[in-house]
């Protein structure tokens, strides 16, 4: 019982994820700033921001549905943090591994977006409503290529369990080269989930203020911001585990450190991507996802099917 609580609340659960996600946000912001020729924040800035927001007053609009408005951020954070219990971090085996956990991880990653939608919708602000509708519209576009490219990698490993995928790619490291197109697609599609440029359409500042988060303040806003960071970390860990899990065989301590650096490398790639582009319009974004990302994901799927037939006979 105490062990389970330790897993859930401290490591690798809430506390560790929160701290690590704030570190990842710092890395993201620093790289973004340096690429833009700015100095960027000091290392404690993300922690200071978080603590400051926690100390601020929570303002709930009178017209908003109080319960839904308050519950949505918690729901989002919980589901994002839960994912961490199912991802291998220091060895090839995750804490609670079962066959099919990768499907559950992907679905848990979808929950925050839906929670943002609910929170934004029930805050009754016009900007928030437009933002939340945009968020869900976007969901249907990036989710398909994201799932397809990750599942293509698991297809080659011939399993639905993340731990077994990790074992497969650490024993056959060269096979992960086949997944490079899938990795690129999932990185791009994941920017849509994180609502970052070029897919920051749901919280486009110059159009709809802060999108679904417009009415949020204080603790609830802190939780929402943390959720986005946790999503970024969880996604990066997932990508690292599926596409290049090579550090995990080096033993618990070294493996953990190497793996965390791999995760931060994915975060760095994400910030590089968002530096070099402008925000797309929602129609352009959906066109791009369906006309470009999905076909490439299909090719990846096909490639992996053929490879599986040839290599693993």
């Amino acid at each position: 019982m105490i062990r389970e609580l330790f897993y859930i609340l401290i490591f690798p659960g809430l506390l560790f994820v929160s701290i690590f996600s704030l570190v990842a946000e710092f890395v993201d912001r620093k790289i973004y700033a340096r690429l833009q020729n700015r100095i960027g924040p000091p290392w404690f800035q993300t922690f200071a921001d978080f603590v400051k927001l926690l100390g601020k007053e929570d303002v709930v609009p009178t017209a908003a549905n109080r319960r839904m408005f308050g519950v949505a951020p918690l729901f989002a954070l919980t589901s994002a943090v839960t994912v961490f219990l199912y991802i291998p971090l220091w060895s090839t085996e995750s804490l609670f591994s079962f066959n099919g956990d990768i499907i559950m991880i992907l679905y848990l990653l979808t929950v925050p977006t839906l929670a943002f939608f609910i929170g934004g919708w029930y805050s009754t602000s016009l900007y928030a409503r437009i933002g939340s509708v945009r968020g869900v519209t976007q969901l249907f576009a990036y989710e398909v290529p994201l799932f397809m490219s990750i599942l293509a990698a698991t297809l080659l490993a011939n399993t639905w369990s993340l731990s077994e995928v990790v074992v497969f790619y650490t024993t056959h490291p060269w096979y992960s080269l086949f997944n490079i197109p899938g990795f690129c697609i999932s990185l791009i599609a994941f920017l849509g989930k994180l609502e970052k440029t070029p897919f920051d359409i749901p919280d486009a500042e110059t159009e709809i203020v802060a999108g679904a988060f417009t009415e949020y303040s204080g603790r609830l806003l802190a939780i929402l911001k943390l959720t986005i960071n946790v999503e970024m970390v969880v996604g990066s860990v997932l990508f690292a585990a599926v596409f290049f899990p090579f550090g995990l065989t080096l033993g618990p301590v070294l493996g953990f450190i190497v793996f965390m650096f791999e995760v931060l490398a994915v975060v760095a790639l994400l910030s590089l991507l968002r530096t070099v582009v402008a925000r797309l319009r929602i129609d352009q974004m959906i066109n791009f996802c369906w006309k470009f990302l999905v076909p490439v994901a299909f090719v990846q799927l096909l490639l992996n099917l053929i490879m599986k037939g040839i290599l693993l006979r």
Partner: protein
Amino acid sequence: MHDSDKFKIPMGPQHPALKEPEGFSVALKGEKIMGVDIRLGYNHRGIEKACEERSYIQDLYLIERVCGICSHSHSTCFVQAVEEIAGISVPKRALYIRTLVAELERVHSHLLWLGVAGHEIGFDTLLMYTWRDREIVMDILAMLTGNRVNYGINIIGGVRRDIAPEQARDILKGVDTLEERTKYYIEVASEETTLIKRLSGVGVLFYDDALRLDAVGPTARASGINRDVRRDDPYAAYSEIKFDVITDMHCDVYGRTLVRVKELMEAYKIIRQCIKNMPDGPILVKAPRKIPVGEAISRYEAPRGEDVHYVKSNGGEKPDRVKIRAPTLANVQAVKCMLKDRYLADMPIVIAAIDPCFSCTDRLVAVRNAHSSNEKILSWEALRKYGIDWHKAHGIDLALVSDNFRKRMEC
């Protein structure tokens, strides 16, 4: 929202996309814009009236503060009108210095615009880069005039500061760097896919519409209207300087971007010519304190378009009437036409593409009905009394407040 599928959302007077207060009320159907209502007047400062109460020299500094970005444009425009009434012929060297500062100002204004445009479409990297480079020209302006924005270099009859040869060298050096960077931005604007996707085909304003709605400056030139006061009605030293008027046939925001970026290259050309051909001689002639009776209209090609000032003198120390028409007033009408059948996401960039400066634009125009009996003109004292009475009627007595304050301070 529940009963119909039509949203009406406010963009402004306070909104992240707008740098100054300005009201846009957008009727939306899904993401599509069905109609836009524009409301000006959130930043009326009564500058024209204030000008009538001050001397010509004081007005010069007041007028410079009409706009934070094109401050030199407004002050030059005003000073030209006054000089025309007074019949002062300004020394050549002063005219060249005015031209030089004007073009440096154009460079800083266009670089600022490029950054703002980048920010409006979520391309913050462009914002950071252009504003970093803008520092070069800001430093040059600070070196020349002592100030980064309100230069205070104009005075009736000439300019206040001369340019030393070392300063000229520094300017040329800065301009070389800027030219290199601008070439890079031209490359970015013509190659970066997401940028082109967001800009081309957005905010279309065809030649006929631009003429009909009286667009000016880069907005008009991007719709193919070949019009530039610097060439058509040369002022300062422009008649002796060779430059091209940039036009573009894209008719959209992309065209406006290209026009502005290419105008930057022309500005560098003009700056180099100014420094090369600058004649020696005095920079100032003495102007009388009292300006003779007369009136004049002065035109000036500000970075945002044609700026018009009207000055009327009754022979005293103070002008009888000053009228300012900032370029944004001419362009803001076109926004409605540009936004027709567009998406909400295009709104910020379309508004930004005219390079609006709403605070400069705010002038009060009252359309009075001659037959109505409700109209009356109040004197200054009567207006003051009306204001005090109005506040008293609403329970605010400012005299009491200040009394209380004094008592509390004495305790």
